[in-house]
């Protein structure tokens, strides 16, 4: 059924101002709850709705005749999703049209079977529009969540240059396959650009190390080794050391308890050492001696 003999289009055309006014009153109840002005959107949607209804296609809102109405609903849902409104609040925008429309139909149609049929048609149509709104709303929320996850992934894997040839990778949060991939890629890229020969992977911020996390760590270490960089794993807390041994995981990598120890070892490997300032003052004045690292 693409075309109907429904009289809804005529009734809407005839009483559009009346319906619009009643609906505006209904919307303002929602408006108070959400705190933004829906009247302007409402007017535009009502126009688009009449355009869709005029096409007579009540059972299929995916056609071109309904494109303007869909566009307005999408825009509304997106705004609502960003503002943090609930799906119910968003869908009510469409459903609140039922009450003025039905009372109008009740007033205009005296024949009971016809009235039932017309109300049924209108219900189906508004339900579809309402569900469409909810769907788009949900999709937008999911997009927001996915984007946030991606941003967190980027934020949580910085590669820090500690010295010429020494990189540090402070890991924060649980290490799953997806994150290992990102960590590995950014570390290897940094090794290429900085020409580093030592990378310190600090796991102070990793809450638990199970066999899977250990495997991911070792994968990262192996990949860095293939690029010609040695890895040191640091920041191993006492509990984690115990867990690793209990699990029987073999970490065939240089490990250090703290980042400081790992850094000292890395400096020694590239032929630098850290000294107290008093000692070096006696020998020679070094202008850039803030970190007190100098050629051995």
């Amino acid at each position: 059924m693409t075309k109907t003999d429904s009289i809804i289009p005529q009734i809407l055309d005839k009483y559009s101002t009346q319906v619009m006014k009643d609906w505006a009153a209904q919307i303002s109840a929602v408006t108070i709850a959400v705190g933004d002005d829906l009247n302007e959107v409402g007017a535009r949607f009502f126009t688009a709705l009449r355009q869709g209804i005029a096409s007579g296609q009540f059972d299929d809102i995916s056609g071109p005749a309904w494109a303007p109405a869909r566009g307005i609903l999408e825009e509304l849902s997106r705004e609502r999703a960003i503002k943090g409104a609930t799906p119910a609040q968003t869908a009510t925008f469409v459903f609140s049209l039922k009450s003025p429309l039905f009372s109008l139909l009740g007033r205009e149609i005296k024949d009971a079977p016809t009235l039932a049929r017309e109300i049924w048609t209108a219900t189906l149509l508004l339900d579809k529009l309402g569900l469409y709104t909810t769907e788009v709303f949900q999709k937008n929320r999911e997009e927001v969540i996915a984007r946030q996850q991606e941003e967190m992934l980027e934020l949580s894997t910085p590669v820090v240059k500690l010295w010429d040839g020494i990189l540090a990778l402070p890991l924060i949060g649980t290490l799953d396959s997806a994150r290992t991939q990102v960590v590995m890629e950014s570390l290897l890229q940094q090794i290429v650009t900085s020409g580093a020969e030592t990378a310190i992977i600090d796991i102070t911020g990793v809450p638990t190390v199970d066999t899977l996390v250990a495997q991911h760590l070792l994968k990262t270490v192996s990949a860095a080794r293939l690029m010609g960089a040695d890895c040191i794993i640091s920041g191993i807390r006492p509990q984690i050391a115990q867990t690793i041994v209990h699990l029987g995981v073999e970490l065939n990598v240089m490990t250090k308890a703290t980042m400081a120890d790992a850094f000292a070892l890395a400096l020694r490997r590239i032929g630098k050492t850290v000294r107290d300032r008093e000692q070096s003052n006696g020998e020679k004045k070094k202008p850039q001696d803030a970190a007190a690292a100098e050629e051995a």
Partner: protein
Amino acid sequence: MDQIPILKIGDTLLVSIQVDMHDRLALALQDDLTAKIVETRARGVMIDISSLEIVDSFIGRMLNNIAAMSRILDAVTVVVGMRPAVAITLVELGLSLTGVKTALNVDKGLALIRQMIDGEEGSLDRRGE
């Protein structure tokens, strides 16, 4: 059939792989390289794979084999210039090339070979004392 050139720099052989490795070429390289090590009495072998975009498990094993063969012929092997994507692929394949030394580029590779050869000689000298 194309051949991979083997260049001699001092007592190090430099193999720069710049074409896509197919399996027959890999086997030919093993033959050529071992012959060249014996012929030139080289102490180090450097394999540059910086232009290789694809390294499969066969090539990975070949690198391992070359390192093992060179070691028997008393030459150290360093693989240099591996791309990040290749490194990740090899690790995912479970090939971490534990028997092979690696360096970021040719420069660092040469330094590493020098260091290893000197180290061996140093330890021999100490033994002689």
